[in-house]
């Protein structure tokens, strides 16, 4: 009989001598341990492959928005609005640079956060609920932690190239005065992943979607986009509202990007704080997501 009908005899790796030596026990236990060794090592990567394959089904949208967004935003805000702002304010309120250079790193970080808000909300909730592939993946030799890691990696693989493209468009518009400007790509990606990890730790807990994700977008992300020193410096806000910026990872990411892209003057401790704050969001979001996924899949 052909392959699929043969009785299970283990995988092609069952005879890997390094593995079977390490394991004691019976022949069937040794075979299982051998078969589990690659998934244990590469599981997160397999999840990444899967997620990227899923993204390929909306590849068109990814590419179109990836190129279209920077063009539209930089043109409208950076060129259109900048002309007005620079003429009226003489550039003084946004530092020593023109409005275009001021707003560009913020738009870059915002683009990264937007990708995070797409990829870590419905796809994560869906993976547990309406297209419950996480349960299927976990029934294979993949752990919930690897599933979480794979999601982060896959989104990173979408976010990084998107940010590079965004940055290239910024260059074309002449929006990056500093030689270190390319580092603002890393600042943006760090921001996107930090927000994404925390988003995932929440969307992974949702049992039903009765509008929580839409609320989160409206009352969490939208205010964050508006009040994170994106379009105007945080100092322009009433003091009573400035805390929104301080707790917002987008503000930290944007300011960090500005340090790189036009040498925005701020104390060194503050720059270090930006990095630490974003790292904290990323690590906490990541670890909590792993925990939530483990609880949910293995109950």
């Amino acid at each position: 009989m052909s392959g699929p009908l043969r009785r299970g005899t283990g995988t092609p790796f069952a005879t890997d001598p390094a593995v079977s030596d390490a394991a004691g026990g019976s022949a069937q236990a040794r075979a299982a341990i051998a078969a589990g060794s690659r998934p244990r090592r590469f599981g997160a990567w397999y999840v990444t492959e899967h997620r990227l394959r899923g993204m390929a089904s909306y590849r068109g949208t990814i590419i179109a928005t990836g190129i279209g967004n920077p063009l539209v935003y930089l043109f409208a805000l950076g060129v259109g609005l900048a002309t007005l702002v620079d003429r009226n304010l003489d550039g003084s309120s946004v530092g020593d640079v023109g409005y275009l250079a001021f707003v560009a790193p913020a738009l870059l970080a915002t683009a990264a956060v937007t990708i995070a808000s797409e990829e870590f909300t419905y796809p994560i909730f869906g993976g547990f609920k309406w297209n419950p592939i996480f349960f299927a993946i976990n029934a294979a030799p993949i752990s919930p932690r690897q599933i979480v890691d794979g999601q982060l990696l896959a989104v990173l693989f979408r976010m990084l190239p998107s940010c590079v493209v965004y940055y290239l468009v910024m260059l074309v518009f002449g929006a990056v005065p500093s030689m270190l400007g390319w580092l603002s790509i890393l600042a943006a990606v760090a921001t996107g992943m930090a927000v994404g990890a925390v988003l995932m730790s929440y969307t992974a807990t949702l049992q039903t979607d009765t509008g929580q994700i839409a609320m989160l977008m409206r009352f969490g992300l939208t205010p964050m986009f508006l009040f994170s020193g994106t379009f105007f410096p945080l100092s322009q806000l009433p003091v009573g509202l400035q805390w929104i910026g301080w707790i917002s990872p987008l503000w930290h990411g944007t300011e960090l990007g500005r340090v790189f892209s036009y040498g925005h003057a701020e104390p060194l401790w503050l720059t270090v704080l930006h990095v630490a704050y974003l790292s904290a969001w990323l690590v906490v979001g990541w670890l909590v997501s792993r925990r939530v996924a483990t609880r949910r899949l293995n109950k």
Partner: protein
Amino acid sequence: MPAPVITATDLTKTYGDFAAVDGISFEVAPGESFGLLGPNGAGKSTTMRMVGAVSTRTSGSLRILDLDPDDSGPEIRAQLGVVPQADNLDLELRARDNLLVYGRYFGIPRKVVHRRADELLAFAQLEDRAKAKVDDLSGGMKRRLTIARALINDPRILLLDEPTTGLDPQARHILWDRLFRLKEQGTTLVLTTHYMDEAEQLCDRLVVVDKGAIMAEGSPADLIRRYSSREVLEVRFGSDRNEAVAERLAGTGDRIEVLPDRVLIYSANGEAVLTRITEQGLHPLTSLVRRSSLEDVFLRLTGRSLIE
């Protein structure tokens, strides 16, 4: 006797203070086709998830392929094929891509996965649906694709949780035929069902479970012999009369069960009982003589029907 591939002893799973699985013990030998037969809520799926090394047990011991799922979950799952109660194919991918993606999770090289995907699509009679969106497949096709996916790693044990629930009769028969092929080839099958005909067709041996506990264990023929008679006479006198007439039927067979819509009389010879009843001047609206089934075993053990 070869070492069992599954050994469960006093296996228990509680949610809060509710025991979904309440101390069950069983063994499965390699190549055997083993079933858990029980009504909804009996704890079948919970048991299957523990055996599938995704749900951690509350107490008792469990060894799969001589390993403890608490320590060696991924290693055990690397050697299992799992068909869950509810299909969880990736709806965003096409049929064949579902197999490719899943095969990678076992670390199977790409080339091998491609070959196996094609073999399994043929086995599942889905060759012409390779490029179809999962959403466009019928229920039976999705189920067959899920089984194909579960076989992608050439598993030592195939776990099937209610493989045909919700399918129409024709789709069920196609599926049974596929599973029977696997059984003939010596694949170890562990399946749950609340259909007695499915259990009779596919299981060498089964346990009857109810409320998280095992009520009886044996081969289907064995269980029927032990807990039922050879034949059953089913008579209907009309819903409001069954109860009253049942008293007058006492002694006509070995045992009587009164259900809301009919009376079951157990005996070695159903026709003879029917003759005796008519001689007593009782004339049922309808009568039917059939062989005893696992349904009767379940009724005997629990006083309830398997389905509703």
